[in-house]
């Protein structure tokens, strides 16, 4: 329990740091990049929206930094992230909440599958060192060196076309309305197959490699020798003794590398025009839509923090030592 509370307080601290960073970055910009935008939309922005932008980007010269910071927090806590310029006059929070489920489903499911698959293959490659599984390493190294988005481009080039099963872009067929019915769900799955495959191929190799290395390290431990000497079956020693212990560092590695993975997967969305936050971020960049960019960064960070917390809970269940009181 103490371990759990420690982790929760660390994540709260990190969330605070990320929000503060988000508050400071626009203030470090030399000049006033937002001023131009405000001028551009002068006629269309309500005075309340302008106030909100002043708070978000520190254009309010009357208040000092601390007052700005306090009002920034007040605004965040009421869920006000400002208005998007690209999708004027929709609030940022609305845009994000419509695109977030797409990303959570696509990235969440594929990351978990990739972790499980990679760990499984890594167990095999580490235990049967010197067999055909060693051939996996160079192939997966090459695949993991390829940028996610380039693999996506190649996948679109090779696998999509007018007659192909795989659609080349979007999250569902154009004629459908998002709903949980028998038309929409299959279409959404069909559209997500190719992006998911791209993410899977380029992210699985990292797990294979780290799990293999842990297996190799663990399999020379004394308790493995003892397990063999007891006459346990090879399979049992591999699974219940070696893999069980090699898994722990891999799970904590999973938590720590989530940030890297999420960054890469956002790009896959861009290539496939998948309606998630990555694609929104891309559109926001093209239009210098600072409120939307900031909001997306904040929401990605918080999602990663929550995912980290979940990974920590998994670790808590796997490693009895963390449950020890005191």
């Amino acid at each position, binding site marked *: 329990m103490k371990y759990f509370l420690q982790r929760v307080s660390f994540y709260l601290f*990190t969330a605070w740091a990320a929000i503060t960073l988000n508050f400071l970055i626009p203030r470090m910009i030399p000049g006033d990049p937002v001023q131009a935008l405000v001028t551009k939309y002068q006629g269309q922005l309500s005075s309340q929206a302008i106030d909100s932008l002043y708070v978000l980007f520190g254009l309010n010269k009357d208040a000092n930094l601390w007052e700005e910071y306090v009002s920034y927090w007040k605004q965040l806590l009421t869920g006000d992230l400002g208005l998007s310029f690209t999708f004027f006059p929709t609030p940022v929070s609305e845009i994000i909440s419509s695109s977030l489920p797409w990303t959570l489903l696509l990235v969440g499911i594929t990351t978990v599958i990739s972790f499980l698959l990679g760990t499984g293959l890594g167990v095999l490659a580490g235990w049967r060192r010197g067999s055909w599984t060693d051939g996996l390493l160079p192939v997966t190294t090459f695949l993991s060196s390829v940028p996610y988005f*380039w693999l996506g481009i190649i996948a679109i080039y090779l696998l999509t076309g007018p007659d192909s099963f795989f659609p080349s872009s979007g999250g569902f067929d154009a004629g459908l309305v998002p709903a949980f019915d028998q038309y929409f769900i299959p279409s959404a799955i069909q559209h997500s197959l190719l992006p998911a495959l791209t993410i899977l191929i380029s992210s699985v190799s990292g797990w294979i490699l780290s799990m293999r290395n842990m297996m190799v390290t663990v399999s020379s431990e004394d308790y493995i020798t003892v397990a063999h000497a007891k006459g346990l079956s090879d399979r049992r020693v591999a699974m219940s003794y070696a893999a069980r212990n090699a898994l722990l560092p891999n799970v904590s590695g999973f938590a720590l590398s989530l940030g890297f993975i999420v960054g890469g997967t956002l790009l896959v969305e861009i290539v496939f025009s998948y309606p998630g936050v990555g694609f929104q971020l891309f559109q926001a960049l093209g239009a210098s839509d600072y409120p939307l960019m900031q909001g997306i960064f904040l929401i990605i960070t918080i999602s990663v923090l929550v995912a980290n917390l979940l990974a920590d809970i998994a670790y808590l269940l796997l490693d009895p030592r963390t449950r020890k009181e005191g």
Partner: protein
Amino acid sequence: MTASAVTMEQVAPVAAPAKRQRFRFVANKKAAAGLLILAIYGILAVIGPWITPYDPGARGDDLVQPPSAEHWMGTTHLGQDVFSQLLEGTRSVMFVGFFAGIVATVLSVIIGVTAGYVGGKTDEVLSALSNVFLVIPALPLIIIITSTLDNAEDWLIALVIGLTSWSWNARVLRAQTLSLRRRDFVEAARATGERTWRVITFELLPNLTAVIASGFVGTVIFAVLSEITLAFIGVTSATTWNWGTILFWAQGQQALAQNAWWWFVPAGLAIAVLGTALALVNFGIDEFVSPRLRSAGKTKIKTNTGRTVRMRIGFTPVIRKEPLP
């Protein structure tokens, strides 16, 4: 009995003092291959912009042409030579990769080693700092920061990447320093009155070389991918060439729909080969430090009695001379 005979034989001929092998690291095939590829990229980074057959930005009359004798990698929608763009871009990619790598490595050594060696409150603060940077997704952060900079130059982008990607190495270094700190030779150095900076630079750092090198290589991979990503999504200026810029134009001009594979395949392969080379060097370092990780070669062996046995780590093979009872 046989065992002792073997050791006797082995010991006898070693009369001359063993030479120190200075380039043992290169003897590792993976590391050698990686370093060779890196050297080629390094040379291209220096001479690339001088040997381009065309000006990479100059327009030509052959629009979107497939590879030919005149244009080895075809042309773009403006008739620009893709091969020239690729050569010109190598410099920027290598520069950003290595500069960011150096910045991140220096930071991680300072923060990681200090946290591990000094301990106490300093350690807690520095660890919390590196954990925060570790958990915040780096790429979105880099995108947000660079998008606020107008027409950022290569060195500025490299600096941003370096300043946001040191945390992983710092964490690894701190753990390694913690385990070294209580070793006898460090205690001895402290007991003889060596000053802290001397203990760190002459006792600790040499023992951390492999960890630092492997962290450096990892950061270079990350920095290269980040720079290319930034250019690809159009955050950085599209006037200087790097491989991401090529992909940016290819994507923006619907190269896919025009079947112009030569426009985006070479740049991607160049990234993948560079990444593979760096990863190979990293494998080399890992295996150099921890020989157990090496590929084991053939592990299935036919014994004299005709059975096949699979060798396992931690087991010592014994050849039985006497026939089985």
